[in-house]
């Protein structure tokens, strides 16, 4: 799609975004006001640095501890392998209830499983995105850009139910539908926000769908990337809180789910029986997808991201084109993750040269992730691999020949049409 077309299409989204943005910003400001922000950022940064630098050791411990508790752990080096593992666990045609997860999106789950199985998205925003045939525009609030009228229309078309375009009415309908499906399903699929080396899986949420998806179906499958592993529960809880501060502008999510084992009882003659009210089987699929490769390189910082999405709200480019900036992951950081996962060609095509390098993301980021500097590094790789824009190669040629980016004609002092500077 041409950029002009994207801009035209996203005009409406901008209005909704602005409203959501102001609510978010004022809430976040209020929460952060009472905190020693510098101290908090330093602590989170340290936790992330330590966990990534020791990721292999932490992963080994986590796997060992989780397996001890009956969780079946699989490691997938890439998306293909992750999908293969999931196909082995989940029989074809089976109803599957799923909560929101970026890594599940990353491995190409939707493309493969939406056809293979009946998949019901249980996150309200994702459900709406799914039935409207849209794409998610924010990692935390995916339906940010969809007008209520459109939601109501999609529900009418799909379920033959007439609703008023009011959030309460929509949520009530969506909730009842999803809940029925959760009780019907044998397989529940979720992501994880943090995993600890001593064997805890932490998943945060506001809606309560994850609590249900992870407990009601007989089998719970968790997909997470290896960078989610930290040392202990203290670190995990702090990250969960910060995710909530920065992700939604709230003091805490409604629920923090902590899973360490299967559901069990030993009430009858001390014999352990698995699968009481929670699942009988818990699976964890740990996805690498290019992550180990950048540990201990100058791109390692990409992995410090906790995925709160705060950077997007302040990003000048995201505010114009939304999910069209990046690929499975959105925004400047999304472009960086695309490089990590898919390499330079895909990265070049998903907005590598969109970034203004303005640094507003780094400013708001809870780990002060220096997106602009890493964007420059990946642009260097791009240039070296032969992916450059025509404008840029012209500019560099001008600089080499004339010593300035505008070229010879600029000598007469007229304002150039293309002012390549900054």
């Amino acid at each position, binding site marked *: 799609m041409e*950029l*002009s077309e994207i*801009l035209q299409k996203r005009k409406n989204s901008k209005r909704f975004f602005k409203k959501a943005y102001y609510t978010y910003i004022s809430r976040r400001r209020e929460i952060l006001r009472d905190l020693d922000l510098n101290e908090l950022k330093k602590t989170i940064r340290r936790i992330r640095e330590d966990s990534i630098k020791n990721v292999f050791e932490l992963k080994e411990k986590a796997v060992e501890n989780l397996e001890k508790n009956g969780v079946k752990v699989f490691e997938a080096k890439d998306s293909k392998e992750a999908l293969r593992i999931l196909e082995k666990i989940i029989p074809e045609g089976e109803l599957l209830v799923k909560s929101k997860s970026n890594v599940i999106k990353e491995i190409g789950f939707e493309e493969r499983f939406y056809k293979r199985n009946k998949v019901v998205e249980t996150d309200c925003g994702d459900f709406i995105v799914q039935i409207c045939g849209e794409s998610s525009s924010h990692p935390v609030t995916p339906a940010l850009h969809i007008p209520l009228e459109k939601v109501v229309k999609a529900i009418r078309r799909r379920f033959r139910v007439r609703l008023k375009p009011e959030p309460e009415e929509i949520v009530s309908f969506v909730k009842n539908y999803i809940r029925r499906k959760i009780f019907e399903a044998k397989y529940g699929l979720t992501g994880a926000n943090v995993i600890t080396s001593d064997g805890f899986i932490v998943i945060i949420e506001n809606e309560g769908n994850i609590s249900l998806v992870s407990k009601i179906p007989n089998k719970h499958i968790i997909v997470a990337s290896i960078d989610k592993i930290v040392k202990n529960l203290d670190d995990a809880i702090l990250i969960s809180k910060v995710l909530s501060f920065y992700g939604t502008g709230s003091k805490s999510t409604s629920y923090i789910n902590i899973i360490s084992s299967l559901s069990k009882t030993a009430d009858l003659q001390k014999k352990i029986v698995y699968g009481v009210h929670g699942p009988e089987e818990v699976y964890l699929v740990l996805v690498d997808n290019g992550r180990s490769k950048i540990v201990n390189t100058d791109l390692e910082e990409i992995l410090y991201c906790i995925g709160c999405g705060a950077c997007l709200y*302040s990003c*000048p*480019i995201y*505010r*114009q*084109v939304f999910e069209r900036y990046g690929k499975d992951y959105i925004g400047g950081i999304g472009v960086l993750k695309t490089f990590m996962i898919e390499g330079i060609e895909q990265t070049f095509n998903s907005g590598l*040269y*969109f*970034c*203004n*390098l*303005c*640094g*507003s993301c*780094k*400013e*708001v980021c809870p780990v002060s992730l220096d997106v*602009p500097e890493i*964007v*420059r590094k*990946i*642009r*260097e*790789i*791009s*240039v070296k691999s032969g992916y*450059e*824009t025509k*404008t*840029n190669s012209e*500019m*560099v040629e001008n*600089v*080499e020949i004339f*010593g*300035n*980016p*505008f070229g010879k004609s*600029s*000598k007469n*002092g*007229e*304002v*150039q049409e*293309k*002012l*390549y*500077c*900054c």
Partner: protein
Amino acid sequence: MIIEKVLKPNVLYYPGCLKKFVYRNLKENYEKILREMEVKFIEVEEEVCCGSPVRNAGYFQQFRNLVRKNFEVFRKYNVGKIILSCPACYYTFSKEYSKVCREWKIECVHAIKMIWEGIRDGRLKIYRKGRGKVTYHDPCHLGRYSGIYEEPRMIIKALGYDLVEMEESRETSLCCGSGGGVGANYPILAREIAKERIEQAKKTRAKILVTSCPLCVFSLKKFSGIKTVEISELILSHVKVKKW
């Protein structure tokens, strides 16, 4: 006297390509103000682009070549200090050059800091006070990249204006839209961002939008409803300078 001339390092004014080749009036503005403050400086023809757009576009080898070229030129002219008025050049010279050129030890000062000191110490005389609301747009390379937020604001206030802030300013300032090569590579995208910034400026009910970067001026000037000026233009309408 001759020995002093040989040994004493020169102060160089580096206007940057945009001021040198496109917005020449802005280059002259800074020259006038610096002379009025009796700052002695030289200007040289051989200097090349600071390398900021080249580095930002990912051409690191070409960036290193430019650093080398400029370093040699400055050495030839015995430059000990550079005065800069473009935010990106200022950031690049003061923070990036020493990373790729070990011998680089040239002191870099931003003209706005000097001008503020000139106003504060009375070396620049304000002959006519301004009136009304003015808002200020922080260029990314001056604000977030270099930490210069106060001086331009103090100048605007000293000129007599009522400084009002946009909803996103200082550390959280919104980019003018052209930074990072977006202005040249995706002009329609840059324009949409600039439009958003202009809306923020208009919301303050200020009559003038002041900024301190030639590219921000280029980006923001295209819209009606508010007057966009570079800070040297504002200064010169309130500070008298001798004819040269």
